[in-house]
């Protein structure tokens, strides 16, 4: 009660005081009232002779700058007629001396770069001007590049990459721990204790090995022949193939490192496969080394620092100099190989003694690898790929290559996993759930790659600066243009929400096959941009609308759950499997074991 009286008194006092204050400050008719939501009907501008606090002398009207010309003043007494124009051309002198050639060159370059898009090339005496639907010299999305907008090396062709990757796969299909046998006991403990994957028993069947060896021989012979016959095709091919191989192997190491650093347990069952992929690193390095050492002239800036006009100066000259370039490449490759060796070795050592400290060590190594990888891979893609066109640059290029590399590597991982499972079904402990997860990861990275591609494309398209559009001009037009949609289709088709779930989730899905088809196309598509003439399959692994755990008893694939044998995991990781939250996967495994599948 008392507080209410106080409050009322207070409010009354405030009211009276505010009324008094308003009374004491009478309205000033010269000052405009506050107007809410003024629709710019009146602009609050200064009148010519009103005082103005913005200028030092306090006046609105200022003196003109020295050298200003009054309106109507004609400094040169010519009328705007053709006769007077001719007379002016004869009488007037250019106060500036004739420009040296390098200034004209520079001017042409700057004009092409900044002005040609709107004003056309005809003004400078270059190629013909363009009329576009009645709008002269209006830029179009696809500007024809002037002579100073250098294109990527047009002799790069899409090589038979799948052959190369299979060759690489064939060379390293193996390597692993010693086999043990399971004595037929059931239960999650036993499974966990003995669940490993033997790679020694996974041998490439002769039927597959022989054609692959033939292909290797054919490749080698073709390459040698090409060195003499068509070097401008063969060297870029080798560069691309080596980079692709390197990418696949790096993807293996990256995958392993990522799984370690996130503490993921689901991938432990098949971790040997990305580790095996990573073992390809020296091969890719050798291929790349061959190109860089034997044919560095592939890069336009080698031997001359003047590419298409202006020579490089300063930083770029130092950066794009062959010895430094080679040294950098060696550092990248060495660091990747060193980290991979360390991680894989620690992982193998854990097989012997099951010590948790190996996991911790690998987590630290993985963290270090990821940091070093980020920097070195960005620089490597700038060095090895982007400098093929030394005047072009794009800051997202490193990420773009990474996306493509990891996508291809993931797809290769899935293919290899399914393949190894079919080769040695008794040895591989991989469930539907694993493939599901890998499939979802593939889907996610597919979308990520499309997103990164679109980012780069859209920004360059939008600003339409010839310095940048040179990259896409060749890709989008001509022969390559036809190949672009099939390359993008699988990626862009995934953009629809729930698209993979369009298949009725209730029907048993043969994950292996859809993964096969899907991943096959991904692997075959090259890491960087050369479009491959493949049509993307629209199938996808289990979709986002699919419950991760609700499909256990329907789509069990018989080969997966035979007696699981040895492999990749130390006792510590096995306990990870025990603590693994995704119990339905384990339920399937135990269920199959309980069913007493044949020995």
């Amino acid at each position: 009660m008392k507080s209410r009286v106080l409050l009322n008194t207070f409010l009354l006092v405030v009211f009276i005081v505010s009324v008094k204050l308003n009374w004491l400050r009478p309205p000033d008719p010269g000052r405009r009232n506050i107007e809410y939501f003024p629709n710019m009907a009146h602009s609050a501008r200064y009148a010519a002779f009103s005082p103005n606090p913005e200028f030092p002398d306090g006046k609105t009207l200022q003196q003109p700058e020295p050298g200003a010309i009054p309106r109507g003043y004609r400094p040169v007494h010519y009328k705007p007629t053709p006769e007077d124009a001719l007379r002016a051309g004869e009488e007037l002198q250019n106060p500036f001396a004739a420009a040296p050639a390098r200034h004209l060159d520079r001017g042409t370059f700057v004009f092409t770069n900044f002005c040609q898009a709107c004003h056309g090339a005809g003004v400078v005496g270059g190629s013909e001007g363009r009329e576009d639907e009645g709008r002269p010299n209006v830029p179009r999305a696809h500007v024809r590049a002037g002579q100073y907008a250098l294109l990527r090396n047009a002799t790069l062709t899409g090589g038979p990459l799948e052959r190369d990757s299979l060759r690489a796969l064939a060379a390293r299909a193996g390597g692993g721990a010693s086999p043990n046998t399971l004595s037929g006991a059931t239960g999650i403990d036993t499974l966990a204790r003995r669940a490993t994957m033997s790679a020694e028993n996974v041998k490439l069947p002769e039927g597959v090995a022989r054609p692959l060896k033939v292909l290797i021989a054919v490749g080698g012979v073709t390459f040698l022949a090409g060195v003499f016959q068509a070097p401008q095709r063969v060297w870029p091919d080798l560069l691309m193939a080596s980079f692709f191989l390197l990418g696949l192997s790096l993807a293996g190491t990256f995958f392993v490192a990522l799984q370690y650093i996130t503490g993921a347990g689901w991938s432990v069952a098949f971790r040997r496969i990305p580790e095996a992929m990573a073992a390809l690193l020296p091969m890719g390095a050798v291929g790349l080394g061959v190109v860089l050492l034997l044919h560095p002239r592939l890069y336009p800036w080698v031997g001359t620092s003047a590419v298409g006009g202006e020579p490089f100066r300063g930083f770029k000259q130092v950066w794009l100099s062959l010895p430094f370039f080679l040294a950098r490449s060696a550092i990248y490759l060495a660091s990747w190989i060193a980290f991979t060796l360390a991680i894989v070795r620690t992982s193998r050592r854990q097989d012997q003694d099951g010590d948790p400290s190996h996991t911790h060590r690998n987590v630290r190594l993985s963290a270090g690898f990821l940091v070093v990888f980020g920097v070195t891979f960005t620089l490597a893609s700038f060095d090895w790929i982007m400098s093929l066109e030394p005047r072009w640059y794009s800051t997202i290029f490193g990420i773009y290559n990474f996306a493509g590399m990891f996508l291809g590597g993931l797809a290769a991982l899935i293919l290899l996993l399914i393949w190894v499972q079919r080769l040695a079904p008794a040895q591989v402990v991989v469930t539907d759930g694993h493939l599901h997860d890998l499939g979802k990861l593939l889907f996610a990275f597919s979308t990520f790659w499309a997103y990164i591609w679109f980012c780069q494309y859209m920004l360059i398209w939008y600003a339409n600066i010839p310095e940048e559009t040179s990259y896409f001009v060749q890709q989008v037009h001509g022969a390559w243009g036809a190949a672009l949609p099939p390359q993008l289709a699988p990626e862009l088709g995934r953009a629809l929400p729930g698209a993979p779930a369009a298949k009725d989730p209730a029907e048993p899905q043969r994950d292996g096959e859809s993964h096969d088809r899907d991943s096959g196309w991904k692997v075959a598509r090259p890491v960087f941009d050369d479009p491959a003439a493949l049509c993307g399959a629209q199938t996808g692994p289990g979709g986002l609308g699919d419950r991760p755990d609700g499909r256990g008893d329907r789509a069990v694939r018989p080969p997966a759950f035979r007696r699981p044998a040895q492999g990749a995991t130390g006792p510590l990781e096995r306990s990870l499997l025990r603590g693994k939250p995704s119990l339905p996967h384990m339920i399937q495994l135990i269920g199959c074991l309980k069913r007493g599948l044949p020995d």
Partner: protein
Amino acid sequence: MSRRLFLAAFEREEDALGATQASREYGFRIVDVYAPYAVHGMERAMRLQPSRLPWVCFLLGLIGATFKVWFEYWTTWIDWPLNVGSKPWDSLPAFVPVTFEVMVLLAGVSTVFAFFLVCRLIPGKKPTLPIAGITDNRFLLVLEETDAAFDPHRVRRLFEEFNAVQVEERVEETR
């Protein structure tokens, strides 16, 4: 028409899950299971059909995207073309962001509305909790007596095996 219902309340998810699976195996008809949270594996135990909501999401997203792309093309190419930065009329790269956003918007909102409709979740609806504590810490399994062969004693034994804390028989009027 009335039907007889058997209710069993459990304290732990493992018991509820086990009881549901066992009921299925014995062939009892499960009316519903109530839980304070989504239990892993329950819909498998109940043999529930997967929801068709992903179809709604996909379809509406497709419709949204298609409509939006058409609308963008129509306004910028046919209805009132305006030369903005000299972009071509069919500037598909520039149309992608808005199309994507509208697709996501339509897909998401329609899925949620479909969910509310299908599950009959209406603002202000009075909830009918069979027992107290379902939203707190009790799981409830509701079986229906389907025929004369339904043996209440077997049912009770089953419930006891899974540590039911409360067993009840009810008769429900169905209209």
